[in-house]
């Protein structure tokens, strides 16, 4: 079995978010980056587990510059066998999906994993586009995945319950919480990751289909106003005129 895992770089969850260039670009100054948790904890670890039980190989793929090599090495340290980096700025989901599809097309992967979303832009678009471009079935938000021969049984969390889907390889799946447990890289894995192949591939010519018009931060939280429990009139007046919820 050949597994491909799409991985992204996202700002650390403690990052203070700001924008530049007239609120059209994320301010990357002094931002610490991490491997997107949905890609790392669930997609990558499940792919590695399936490789460990079924044999085969796990390749990770990323679209980005050499600055992304650190998170790619982490994926290799966790247990991926090799990595591909498409050497281009990841402008939008269509661009990224097109680059991954161009690589995957000729490499006959049996299962293509992605996280259900990246924790920065929360687009959830790449795996769906990728499935369409490769003419493969797509199962989204998968919380459990078992593989028996060429048939996968996948559980999806749906509103108020669970849906179980079966699908034949090859397919694309996006992984949600529950699919696997986080694996922390160990020292040997980290040392070994240096010797694993990281192939840098030049992008194919694809135009992005969207541009960001602007970003807006959510309004800052206002201070809490304390109202005396005896003073109901003031509370009602505040809810009417300031909070405007009555």
């Amino acid at each position, binding site marked *: 079995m050949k597994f491909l895992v799409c991985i992204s770089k996202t700002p650390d969850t403690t990052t203070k978010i700001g924008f530049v260039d007239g609120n059209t670009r994320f301010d990357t100054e002094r931002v610490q980056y991490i491997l997107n948790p949905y890609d790392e904890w669930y997609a990558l670890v499940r792919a590695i587990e399936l490789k460990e039980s079924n044999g085969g190989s796990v390749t990770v793929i990323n679209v980005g510059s050499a600055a992304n090599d650190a998170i790619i090495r982490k994926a290799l340290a966790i247990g991926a066998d090799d990595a591909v980096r498409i050497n281009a700025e990841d402008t939008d989901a269509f661009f990224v999906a097109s680059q991954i599809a161009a690589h995957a097309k000729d490499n006959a992967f049996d299962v293509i994993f992605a996280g259900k979303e990246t924790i920065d832009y929360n687009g959830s678009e790449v795996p769906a586009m990728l499935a369409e471009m490769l003419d493969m079935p797509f199962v989204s938000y998968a919380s459990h995945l078992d593989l028996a021969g060429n048939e996968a049984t996948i559980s999806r969390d749906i509103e108020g319950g669970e849906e179980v889907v079966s699908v034949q390889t090859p397919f694309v799946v996006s992984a949600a919480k*529950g699919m696997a447990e986080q694996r922390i890289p160990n*020292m*040997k894995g980290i040392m070994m990751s240096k010797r694993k192949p990281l192939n840098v591939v030049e992008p194919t010519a694809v135009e992005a289909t969207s541009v960001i018009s602007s970003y807006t931060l959510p309004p800052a939280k206002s201070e809490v106003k304390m109202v005396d429990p005896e003073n109901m009139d003031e509370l009602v007046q505040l809810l009417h005129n300031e909070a405007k919820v009555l």
Partner: protein
Amino acid sequence: MSNPTVDHQNGRAAKTDLYQAHDYMLVDELLTEEQKLIRDSARAWVKKEVSPIIEDYAERAEFPSQLLKGLGEIGAFGPTIPEEYGGAGMDYTSYGLLMQELERGDSGIRSTASVQSSLVMFPIYKFGTEEQRRKYLPKLATGEMMGCFGLTEPDHGSNPGGMLSTIKDAGDHVILNGSKMWISNSPFADIAVVWAKDEEGKIRGMVVERGAEGFTTPTIHKKWSLRASATGELVFEDVKVPKENLFPDIRGLRGPLTCLSSARFGIAWGAIGAASDCYDTALRYSQERIQFDKPIGAFQLTQKKLAEMITEITKAQLLAWRLGQLKDQDRATPAQISMGKRNNVNMALEIARECRQILGGAGISGEYPIMRHMMNLESVVTYEGTHDIHLLITGMDVTGFNAFKG
């Protein structure tokens, strides 16, 4: 998925670890990507495995032995030992970063890893025969086998050269007599690296296996420090040690002191972890705790404490980083390592005490890690060369006069 906020061993609720590292002078930029990944992985492991349970184990003075397997799996045992013997072949700066993160969790957990790595695996690798390396190192690396180090004796601490433990030649084996004191890991160790004098009065090193007749490891109780670490004695009464268990070539104090240099190097880093955890806790507390209608962090005296702490932590980080560079180039002298160990541990101890004050009454509570770190550091400032002895090593190094011998 198991709930990481509950200690499944005893079912008690555990605390959430809010720790964030502090890097005021962007020292991170001096590290390689690999070193940062090693540091971050160790930090993640500590948050997941150590923080939720450590306060409880320290309170009950019990060693969390279930962590040994995980310590082996992440590679905390013998990380600098070459891969062919089960290590990871890491550089010393990485080893230091690993110790920093383990001690951020607890000095006792770091001690267990220090002893196994620097005082057991290192001498077997450095002084042992090829057979000894093959027999012990791979199992020590996984934690399947645990070791301890016997140098200090009841009457010989700072002066190990005066040791009374002896070995006598008895043909294919030697007869070992004596006792060792304050030995981390001794109560559960499978092997002990022991130093004793031969009939010519020369110090020899050897591996003594648990189960040897006449060899016992009584536990030391009633400690107010390193409570989550197992400490004991090693008692040898006519213990037969096969000659193939002796280190063949090393003679004299140079053997054990070489091991201690390696361990002290790790402590110089470890102390930064303990200090950072205290500082991080006190900084957050100072921003949240309101007195006289404002956060206590807004008062000048609290700011003085916090500002001096981050300054001292930053200096310690730079000292440790430089020491790591020298160690990786095999140029770090024992005296330089002494300076690093002494300065950084003292820094951590003073920061722990100041942080305890910032937290006021809450500072003495097990709800926060500070008092535990503070009590642990009282051991760390004493073991592996006391604060005063390291000062005299620096004194001797700069003046040429030995002030602690006769």
